[in-house]
C-alpha cells in the first residue's frame, strides 16, 4: 500500500501541472478582458496538431517544431482577437455575446482541425522524452517532468511579467477598468493583442505537451478547458497563484476520488467541487 502513495501523489502533480498550465493562459485572458474565452480550448488542440504537423508530417527538427507551434498558436489567438473579439468589444457587446462568439470559434476551429487531420487519435513521439525515471518511489516520464518544469517556468515568468513590468501594470489597469486605462494613456489595443499572443503560446505549449504525453484529437480542447475553468474558479478568479493552487487541489481531489471511489466518479467529484465553491466560496480559495 505504501508503495502506491508516492505514485498517486505523482499522478496528481502531473495532472495538476497540466491543469495549471492551461489555466494560466486562460486566466491571462480573463484577467485582462473579463470574459470566458472558450475559444482558448481550441487553441490547445490547435497547438497539439501544429506540433504533429511540423514534427511528424514535415519532419522539421524538434526545436523548430516547438517554436513553430508556439508562433502559429499565438498567431491564431491574435487573429481570433482581431477578427472577432476586438470588434465585438469595441461595439460594447456584453460578456454573454463574447462567450457565445468564443464558443462558436471553439466549435469552428475544432471542426476545421477534424477536416484537415481527420478525427483519428494521433500521437507525437520524441524518443528521448519517453523514458521513465523513478523519483521518491514514483514512476514519471521525461515528458511529464518537462510538463511540470514548463508549468513552473510559465508561472514564474508570468508573475514577473505581471508584477514587475510596465506591461504587467498595463494589463492590471485594463483588467480593473479599461476606459480609465485608456484615459491615462495605456495603449489598450496593443496590450490586449499581446495578452492573446502570450495566452496562445501557453495554449500551444499545453497542447504539444499533451500530444507528447498521451496524444491528440480534435475534441481534446473541451476537456482541458473545463478543468482549467474549474481550477481558475476554485483558485479565485482574481489571483494568478490561485490558479495554480486550484489546479493542484483539483488534481489531488480527483485522484483521491478515483483511488477511494472509482473511475466513473472523477468528473462527478470535480464538478461537485466547482459547484460547492460557487455556492459557498464564490471568490475561491484566495478570494476575500
Amino acid at each position: 500500500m505504501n508503495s502506491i502513495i508516492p505514485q498517486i501523489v505523482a499522478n496528481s502533480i502531473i495532472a495538476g501541472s497540466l491543469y495549471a498550465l492551461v489555466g494560466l493562459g486562460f486566466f491571462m485572458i480573463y484577467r485582462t478582458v473579463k470574459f470566458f474565452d472558450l475559444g482558448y480550448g481550441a487553441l490547445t488542440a490547435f497547438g497539439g496538431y501544429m506540433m504533429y504537423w511540423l514534427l511528424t508530417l514535415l519532419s522539421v527538427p524538434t526545436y523548430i517544431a516547438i517554436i513553430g507551434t508556439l508562433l502559429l498558436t499565438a498567431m491564431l489567438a491574435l487573429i481570433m482577437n482581431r477578427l472577432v473579439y476586438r470588434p465585438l468589444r469595441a461595439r460594447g457587446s456584453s460578456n454573454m455575446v463574447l462567450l457565445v462568439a468564443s464558443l462558436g470559434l471553439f466549435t469552428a476551429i475544432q471542426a476545421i482541425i477534424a477536416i484537415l487531420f481527420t478525427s483519428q487519435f494521433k500521437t507525437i513521439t520524441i524518443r528521448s522524452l519517453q523514458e521513465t525515471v523513478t523519483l521518491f518511489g514514483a514512476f514519471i516520464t521525461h515528458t511529464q517532468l518537462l510538463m511540470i518544469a514548463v508549468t513552473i517556468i510559465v508561472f514564474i515568468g508570468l508573475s514577473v511579467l505581471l508584477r514587475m513590468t510596465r506591461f504587467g501594470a498595463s494589463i492590471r489597469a485594463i483588467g480593473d477598468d479599461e476606459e480609465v486605462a485608456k484615459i491615462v494613456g495605456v495603449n489598450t489595443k496593443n496590450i490586449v493583442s499581446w495578452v492573446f499572443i502570450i495566452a496562445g503560446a501557453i495554449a500551444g505549449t499545453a497542447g504539444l505537451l499533451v500530444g507528447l504525453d498521451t496524444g491528440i484529437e480534435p475534441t481534446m480542447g473541451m476537456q482541458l478547458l473545463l478543468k482549467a475553468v474549474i481550477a481558475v474558479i476554485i483558485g479565485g478568479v482574481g489571483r494568478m497563484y490561485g490558479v495554480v493552487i486550484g489546479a493542484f487541489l483539483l488534481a489531488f481531489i480527483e485522484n483521491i476520488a478515483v483511488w477511494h471511489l472509482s473511475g466513473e466518479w472523477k468528473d462527478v467529484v470535480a464538478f461537485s467541487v466547482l459547484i460547492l465553491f460557487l455556492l459557498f466560496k464564490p471568490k475561491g480559495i484566495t478570494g476575500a
Partner: protein
Amino acid sequence: MKNIKWIIGILVVIILVVVLSNGGDKEQSAQQTEGPIKIGFIGPLTGDVASLGENALIAAQLAVDEINANGGINDRTVELIAEDGSCSGKEASSAAQKLISIDKVVGIIGGLCSSESSAFTGILNQSETPGISYCSSAATLSDAGDYFFRTYPSDAYQGVFAANYLRNEKMIDKVAVLYVNDDWGAGLKQSFIDTFKNLGGEVVLEESFEKDERDFRTQLLKAQASGANLIYYLGFDQGAVSAIKQRDELNVDLPMFGADPWDDMTIWNDVASISEGFGYTVPHTTDSQSFTSKMADVGVSEVSVCASQSYDTMNIFAQVIGQVGTNGSDIKDALYDVQYQNGISSQNISFDENGDLVGAEYVVKTIQDGQVVEL
C-alpha cells in the same frame, strides 16, 4: 400591434409546417417508386471511435458503388446518406430522425456503437424503417423491436468466450475489469463477469471510466494493488492507447486483454512494441483477400473490425430490396427469412427471431513481436 404581429407570426409558422409536412409525404411516395433508393448510414465519424466509423462507411460506400456499377437495384441506383452518430445516443438519435423524416431513407445501416443503436431503435419501429447494425454488440439490443437487426454478434457470446478463454486456457484466477461506462461496456462486462465467476475465477476490481477519459494512471495502480493477474480492458481506441502507454510508464506488470474495438491497427501502429503478449477477442470473419484488396483500392490500408459487416449489410439490403421493393414492413419481413450467402464477415448470414445474427464465432488475436497474430 405587438399581439397582431405575434399572431401572424404563429400563423405563418403553422402554415409552413403544414405545407412542408404535406410536401414531405408526397416526396416519400415518390421516393418509393422512382429516383435513387436512399439508404442511411450512421456511425461515429468524429470523436473517439471515428477510425472504425470512417472505415465502415468506406466499406458501405464500396458496396453501393459495386451495386450501382452492376445496374443498381431493379434499375434504380442506390444513394448512401451518411450521418455522424459520434458514438453517442443523442447524436445518433437526431441522425436517425433526420435520415427518416427528411431524407426518407428506405433503411438504415447502423449504428456502430451500441449506445448509438439503442438510441434510435424506437424511431425505427415507430416509422417502420428497418435498421441493420454492423457493429453494435450490446446484449440488450436483442430486445430492440422488430425493425432492428444486426450482422454483428451479440456480446452475450463475446463475454462468455473471453471468460472461458482467460479462465480455462490462460489459467487466470484474478482479473481486474476496467470498462467504458456505456451500453456496450456495461453489457459486455456483465456477461464476462458472470461467466468468469461461474468458472471459479475472481473479479478483484471492477471499475468504469468515461468514454473521453485519457488518464488511467490511478486506475491502473488500483488494478495492480488489487492482486489481479490480468486487466480486462473494455474501451475504444484512443483511451486504449493512453491506458497501454500509461501501464508501460508506470511499470504495471499485468498483461491487458481487450475486446473487439482493439481490432484496429491505429492502436497497434502506436503501441504494439509495449504490448507484448496482450490479446483480444474479435468475431471470426471469413478471410477474404479480395475484400482487403478492394478496400486498399479505395485507400484503406488497414481494414478495421466491422468494416466487412458494414459491406455485407449494404449487400443484404440490396438483396432484400431487390426481392420485395422499398416498403419498410416488407423489407423487415424478408429480413427475418433472408439467407445471405458468401458474405465477407461470415459465410452465411441470417437473423433469428430477435434480429440477432445466427451463429457467432470468435477468435483470439495476440500481439507477438510487435505484430497482431491470430491464434
